[in-house]
């Protein structure tokens, strides 16, 4: 029974979000924040999710070079600097993913033909991202930046799924974007 508890809690939370979405649909005439979401999507795809930058922060080459210098203080300094950078990258990524999800929520409130299965899938992906974010943040703090590369790959892949869902939504709102949107892209480390 205790092993089912986390799933029950997550399912309950998702249901609350869904019911809230369906109830508030069409009641709020606020802007959907299209431009803000588009900027978030571009930031994620152009700057944060491509593997080059994260690989540069977490890659082992610089750590090996500094270790070879034989100065423990500089080694610690590098680890601290890279830890700060990894946390900065992670927080910035979460901010942009949150902006995208907020856009989805605003859009869903105004949409008359909501697809509950799709909304459920997106909400699940978003909660998965938040869980991966929390786990990665704690791992970086506790284990340091060098030992989290696989987790970064997973978190990045989940964030990209949110991006793909947003891309599809943008195509729905503006069909001329169809060519620019492709399927989910995975960025392995």
């Amino acid at each position, binding site marked *: 029974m205790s092993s089912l508890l986390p799933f029950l809690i997550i399912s309950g939370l998702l249901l609350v979000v869904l019911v809230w979405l369906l109830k508030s649909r069409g009641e709020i005439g606020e802007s959907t924040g299209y431009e803000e979401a588009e900027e978030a999507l571009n930031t994620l795809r152009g700057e944060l999710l491509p593997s080059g930058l994260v690989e540069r922060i977490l890659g082992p080459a*610089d750590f090996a*070079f500094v270790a070879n*210098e034989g100065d423990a203080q500089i080694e610690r300094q*590098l680890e601290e*600097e890279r830890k700060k950078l990894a946390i900065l990258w992670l927080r910035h990524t979460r901010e942009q993913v949150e902006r995208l999800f907020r856009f989805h929520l605003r859009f869903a409130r105004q949409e008359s033909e909501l697809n509950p299965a799709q909304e459920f899938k997106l909400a699940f992906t978003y909660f998965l991202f938040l869980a991966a974010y929390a786990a990665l943040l704690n791992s970086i703090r506790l284990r340091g930046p060098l030992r989290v590369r696989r987790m970064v790959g997973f978190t990045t892949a989940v964030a990209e799924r949110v991006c793909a869902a947003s891309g599809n939504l943008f195509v729905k709102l503006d069909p001329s974007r169809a060519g620019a949107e492709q399927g989910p892209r995975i960025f392995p480390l």
Partner: protein
Amino acid sequence: MNTRFTRMDVSKASEELKHHTLASFPTDIGKLIYLASTRDYNTGKYYHDGFAQRFSEETASTVLAACHQELFKSLVNKPLQELVNDLREYLESVPSEMDQVLEMWRELEPYRVTIPLGANRIAAHLFASNLKIALAIVECRRKARRSGSLDASQLR
């Protein structure tokens, strides 16, 4: 003043900047500092009298800004080992006492003003962080060299 702005001019000016003007700087850090120094810190625009006269003010500004961005990106992607060598070479080329230069760089962090406008926020942090580490390594090597405890490969 010539205000025409064509793609051909931009391409020609870019070639000239990379292969003539910047070629006289032996290090990437030296090139970056030079490019950043052509930027007006009040307006963010780039100025170069020679280029402005030959092409146009707008072409000169566009080419300098693009080259600044490009060089910054390449420095962000440079492995720490190469950055340390580049920084050491640059610092040695400065006609001042090395210890004083190192201290000023550590205290004032002048490399922060070399970051181009609109640079990726994380990349800008990574660049400053890498230079801080590179500076610490250059200093550490100098101290070790004085006390004679560094092997030949690290002295290079």
